[in-house]
């Protein structure tokens, strides 16, 4: 969600770290040498995003003030990294991986499933603010394609049915276990272990 100044976004007038986050910010800043506190800009922006779910402009200004930087220098950083959300995202932010391995294993279907199920397009948020959807490039879990990242967790080895179930669970306020949804452990071969069978433990059953 990079790309700069979207004028349609309602920007809050003020932002301040909560006392806990402010203490955390001070702890982060202390890691860097004096006069080099600007190095803390990335972790502080991330902290701000953790606090409100996205990075409003007021948060960037607040970070700039804390770090004694020109605000534009913070805007540059915040707009450069796609992991900073410059617009509000849903409580569950769905990132569908669309790079080749996932695409070959059905990423398009994952996107379609989300769109149909949630009634939103890419870069949109559901009316209830629960879900937002984007496509991203390689999430680095190609062995478990297709993959959808929901907030901080990877949901792997998906198929449309399983994904719909996960969305239902989330909507109902339950968080399904993350990781492979096909029953295998980690990225082990789909049919079970082929080597070191004697020490490999049996795979846990899927949560369904």
């Amino acid at each position, binding site marked *: 969600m*990079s*790309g*700069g*100044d979207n004028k349609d976004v309602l920007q809050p007038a003020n932002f301040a770290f909560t006392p806990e986050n402010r203490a955390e910010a001070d702890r982060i800043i202390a890691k860097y040498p004096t006069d080099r506190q600007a190095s803390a800009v990335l972790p502080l922006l991330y902290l701000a995003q953790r606090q409100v779910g996205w990075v409003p402009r007021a948060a960037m200004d607040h970070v700039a003030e804390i770090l004694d930087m020109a605000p*534009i220098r913070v*805007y*540059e950083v915040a*707009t*450069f990294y796609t992991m900073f959300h410059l617009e509000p995202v849903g409580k569950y932010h769905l990132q569908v991986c669309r790079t080749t391995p996932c695409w070959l294993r059905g990423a398009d279907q994952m996107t379609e499933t989300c769109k149909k199920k949630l009634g939103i397009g890419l870069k949109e948020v559901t009316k209830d603010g629960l879900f937002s959807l984007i496509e991203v490039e390689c999430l680095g879990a190609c062995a478990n394609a297709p993959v959808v990242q929901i907030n901080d967790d990877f949901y792997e080895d998906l198929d449309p049915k399983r994904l719909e179930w996960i969305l239902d669970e989330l909507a109902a306020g339950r968080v399904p276990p993350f990781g492979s949804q096909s029953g295998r452990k980690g990225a082990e071969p789909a049919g079970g272990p082929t080597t070191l069978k004697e020490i490999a433990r049996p795979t846990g059953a899927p949560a369904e």
Partner: protein
Amino acid sequence: MPKMTIDGIEIEVPAGITVLQACEMAGKEIPRFCYHERLSVAGNCRMCLVEQEKAPKPIASCAMPVAEGMVIKTDSPVVKKARQGVMEFLLINHPLDCPICDQGGECDLQDQAMAYGYHSSRYREEKRAVPDKEFGPIVKTIMTRCIQCTRCIRFATEVAGVEILGATGRGEHMEVTTYVEKTINSELSGNLVDICPVGALTSKPYAFIARPWELRKTQSIDVMDAVGSAIRIDSRGREVLRILPRVNDDVNEEWLADKSRYAVDGLRRQRLDRPYLRVDGKLTPATWPAALEAIANRVTGLPGNRMAAIAGDFADAESMFALKGLMTELGSPNLDCRQDGAALDPNARASWLFNSTIAGIEKGDAILIVGSNPRWEAPVLNARIRKRYLKGGLKIGVIGPKLDLTYPYQHLGQTADVLGQVASGAHAFADVLKNAKSPMLILGQGALRGPEGAAMLGTARKLADTCNLVREDWNGFSVLQTAAARVGGMEIGFVPQPNGRNVAGILEGTAKGEIDFVYLLGADEIDMTRLGKAFVVYQGHHGDAGAHRADVVLPGVAYTEKSGIYMNTEGRAQIAEPAIEPLGEAKEDWAILRALSEKLGHTLPYDTLEQLRRALFKAAPNLQQLGAIVPAKWETFGRTGAVTARAFHLPIANYYMTDPISRASETMARCTDAFVAPMTGTGTHG
């Protein structure tokens, strides 16, 4: 001194320079977009690629330091192919709209595409488009043309000291922007137009006015402040269309302040193009003979002490010299060139010069700024202070209003008495100055004006002693002038002669009826209501305050229309050259005075400008040293006496409107609305 080989030429170059600079020393031209001599190295445009022996791929010469034994090729097939490739990539997203682009004809991208690019484009896909930004009344943006060299970002951050430009987004989505719409609030913003290598940032007032090949270029000197920046006046026919800086490393490097650049439209408005006579209380057009006759009628028989002359801020040395000659012939001692009443000591040259010199700022390691806002009074000089600050190890103190000067400083106090504390050594900043290697005092006109001006000058002089400002090979006592004419006027002694009155005295005289005749040589910044019943002659080029009060108006010419010597605040004599013909019936200023002197029966002893200059150089030999500075002798000056805790009144209330030319300029009015009005909240009348 590493030795290297560039295209087979063996050359020894200074250590620490870049390969690009070394190539230039060897006489090889290296194309570039992002590299700029006076900005930090970015190395992102890749246009300066050269081949280095034993390197696996071409190197960016702007970012590569030289090393012993380097072998560089700038004309090999590899380099040619690399340049063509870079150029092709740059042109993928650059619109091919040169015919409707204001940069056309003076565009680095256009020139280098011709010299180093392919003959035609292979790109058939869609190009990207970028929304334009609002940068204020001076800089026009067409951001689709931006090639992201980031020169403007670096200029704003490093030289101008306003850190509001940046590059947001990444890759193809990168945009140069202020992010939150903000105008470029800098007095140096016009330089963004110059450093932009393409047509992304162009001049708003000059938009679609002319093509560079239509222009006549005249090398001259700027008079909008006392820095004396080197300028190039671009004119077509009888109009000055724009003003650009020239390189002068001693003065303006290659920057120019916005007022010096963009007040030119003021040269076309409110101009005096014929003589006027006041008839029945109204100024009516008159002929030259009638105007001179009217003056002669009033002056004849008048004793010298009932006459006075005041020179304004744009007066050239020649016309002031001629006016002084005439007044002396008429027996009047009442002369002054210090419209603002600043207490410059006529007898001590060091008391009105920027003795450290502008380039000398880079040597200074402690600066005390008193009663001055250098950002408005001399933006280019202020950029030099910032340049010195960026090098590190500079301590700056300020006495006067707390302002954003584009560099941090220690604020010592608002009032004049703090200077006394530093001078007596009681203030801690005195030790900072004492312990510095090259300490400086920048004394503004704001400190020297008003009734305590002479005492302030004396206190500053005392500070120079206590803090050791003047040492062997160093004079840190620097007076910052605001008017281009001032130093020249002081140099030729356009000051009260024995028993003469200064500006305050003259205005007192006119108000009381003791002076009947006042000659204003372009003087507009005095209180005209105090001229009383005096007969006022105004010689100048703009219908401003002086002309409105005058009984006779003699149309002179502006600095773009005459050859005249101006001495800048350092004491550097420079010559301004005419770019266009005088307007209407206007005449060169010295010639008007010469004609008047004949009419008055006191013919001045010169018939040509050359003869006048010969006499001028005899009287004021320092003016002859064009381009050079004759250092001032260090003497005693100023009045001893305590200074009270009074606040300073800085000479400039609105940077964009300080004189008849800028007050007539529409662009300057727009700048006032955009930049000054939000600060003061008083609209355009600041």
